[in-house]
């Protein structure tokens, strides 16, 4: 019972955050809603016993990725979203498509809700075991992702770095400051 209550509370927080993300017109509000979603998801992970995943969720998603988002929003000083009518297709086909798809999936899932249920901490994911899995069964994907991250770092640096002439004109200013 407690499990269901906790699940429902944080599930509702999750959904509320997600909907707030859609409703808010300022990106920074959306970003904070997303942080809330991630935080409550971490709690859901804890409920399922995945404590390590929950911690990493907070550290990586909330603590790093979303900080990056907030940082970019601040850097670009992104303002309130304009309401341009750019795409009829998205409204005519996309939104109904999403609605139909999600309703269908939910319907099917709830039809079979009796087939399986999980208890609190159903599958503890201690860091040691997960580390073992990562470095043995998933060693190759792990290494490949490391290469991916390296590429992403270089790509981000190259993409976001100023063009040469801007950099040259910017450097003296920095020194003066």
């Amino acid at each position, binding site marked *: 019972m407690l499990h269901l209550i906790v699940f429902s509370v944080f599930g509702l927080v999750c959904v509320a955050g997600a909907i707030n993300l859609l409703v808010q017109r300022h990106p920074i509000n959306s970003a904070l809603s997303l942080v809330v979603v991630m935080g409550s998801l971490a709690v859901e992970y804890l409920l399922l016993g995945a404590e390590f995943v929950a911690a990493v969720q907070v550290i990586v998603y909330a603590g790093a990725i979303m900080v990056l988002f907030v940082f970019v929003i601040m850097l670009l000083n992104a303002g309130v979203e304009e309401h341009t009518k750019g795409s009829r297709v*998205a409204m005519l086909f*996309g939104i109904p498509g999403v609605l139909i798809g999600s309703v269908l999936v939910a319907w099917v899932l709830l039809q079979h809700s009796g087939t399986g249920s999980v208890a609190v901490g159903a599958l503890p994911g201690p860091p040691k075991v997960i580390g073992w899995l990562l470095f043995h069964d998933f060693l190759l994907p792990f290494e490949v992702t490391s290469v991916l991250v390296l590429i992403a770092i270089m790509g981000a640096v190259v993409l976001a770095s100023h063009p040469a002439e801007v950099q040259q004109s910017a450097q003296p200013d920095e020194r003066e400051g």
Partner: protein
Amino acid sequence: MTPNLHLWLIPVLPLVGAAINGLFGRRFSRQTVVAIALGFSGTAFAVALWVATQASFLPVLENLAPWIRAGDFQVDFAFYLDQLSLVMLLIVTGVGFLIHIYSVGYMWEEAGFYRFFAYLNLFMFFMLTLVLGSNYLVMFIGWEGVGLASYLLIGFWFTKDSAASAGKKAFIVNRIGDFGFLIALFLMIKHFGSLNFVQVFRIVSGLPAEVAGAGLLTSIGLLLMVGAAGKSAQIPLYVWLPDAMEGPTPVSALIHAATMVTAGVYMVARSHAIFDRAPQALMVVAIIGTLTALFAATIGICQTDIKKVLAYSTISQLGYMFMACGVAAYSAGIFHLMTHAFFKGLLFLAAGSVIHAVGGEQDMRRMGGLRHHIPWTFWTMTAGTFAIAGFPPFAGFFSKDAILWRAYSSPYGSWVYWAIGVFTAFLTSFYMFRLWFLTFFGEYRGEVATSHEDEHSHAGAPASHGHGGIHESPKIMLVPLVILAVLSVCGGWVGIERFDKFLSPTFHAGATGYSAEELSASTPAPQPKEQGGSEALFTGISVVAAALGLFLAWLLYYRRPQLPQEIAKALGGFYEAVVHKYYVDEIYAAVFVKPLIDGSTRVLWQGIDRDVIDATLDNSAEGAREVSDAVRHMQSGNLRSYAGWIAAGAAVLIAYMIWMGTR
């Protein structure tokens, strides 16, 4: 132990020369080009001579590399040398080398000097490949290659419309023959599973002879004959050869008299095992040869262009060779091929020398009395003329006499062949002496040769010489003439019997299934059909025919030069027909070319190509454009639209999956 003869060297050497001259010749001086061209072809000749000294080891099979391996079917790059190919090898390299030398003098002033020698070397390469190939496919490479070289050389003066057209004509007519040849090859692959001479002949000799009816071997034989007729200018595919005289005279001598056109004869002789088993095909060969000989000779009588006369004479002589092959007297055919290469090469070169002397004029009616001006040419040409006319002891006498005798005495022969052959010999003698008298005797009928360049520049021969008057050719042209003249005189002394014996391993090898009668068909042994004594009588008749020709020519063109016009008037329409080569070109144009062009234009081009194929493509392109016009609005560049499509598609997929899952 068979020594390694390095046969591959012989064709490859000219190829290297052709490659060097063709790729870099533009920057070389003429001397360098000559050195390269003569060096490589001369070396090839030397290697061929050395190979000939090793003749005791024949036959030799040299397998260089595998080419096609498909299941059991296998074709290799392999060379095969036996007595037959050795004879051809020596003719090709020897005569070819002499004509190379001659060309240096003849072509010296031409613009595409390096190009000419590159082509000439290329021709040598392909001709040697043809001769040395150990299977039909390698032979076919050479076969096509010499066609290509011939095309390039006929159209050497490609800026001249007639030369370009003549080149195309030669190429296209040859395609018809090659078509037959190819089908013959396919039949062999299908039924014998091999193209290797040795294997094919072994299989063929195991088959029973097809005495009546058109079976497999007859079909193959006839198809091969079609190929041979194309390459060797036999009825009905001879029409390209006279036009091929548009090319430079050395080319006419080398390709269109001495070597390439004899490839058909070589091929038939090489395939003797097939023809021996297919008497029907053999008969067709003989009939075609005989008719061609007679037919071309009659046309030759009325030609006025010195090279055209020689061209028709070539066709006629090739007819003799086919006649010989057609009566299974292959060695006689090859013998005549050899002597013909000598004297016809000589005649062409001498004719070139004459043309050179009179500054590009080719019409005999404007020559005359040249014997004092160009004595060397006159005497060599005389040797050639007597040789082709068949006077003893010149080379042509021996070979032609052998053919005529075999045509009668062979088990496949008939007196009809012999009679036509003798009549043709008379005609040959007549038109050759007509040429001789018109050119060298009487008064000079041309204009005084100071400003001949304008009017003769059409002729293609070296018209740009900055010399005046009639003059003898340079020594570099005369040396080959003299050598060939000596060969024309002496070339036949070897005699048909010894030649027969030399070639007998080729023509009798593997013929285990032969009956004794057939075996002896190509030997001069006494025949049950006729006593040996009558051979002398036949020889006498043919010599008399030749002499008759000489007399008639003397009468008409030396003694009473106005007589030919009167005879022509008397003959009327027939004479016209002969002058116009029996209107064969016109008939071909009306029967084949025009319907083909009309059909292509109306049906294939305007009907199928434009209204069906083009229309299909145009309409589908138009349709695609219209559809794209409508659909491209989807690709607006708007990210959210794309996402909308994806979402809608995903919804459809989910719905489908659920529907499938709940069914």
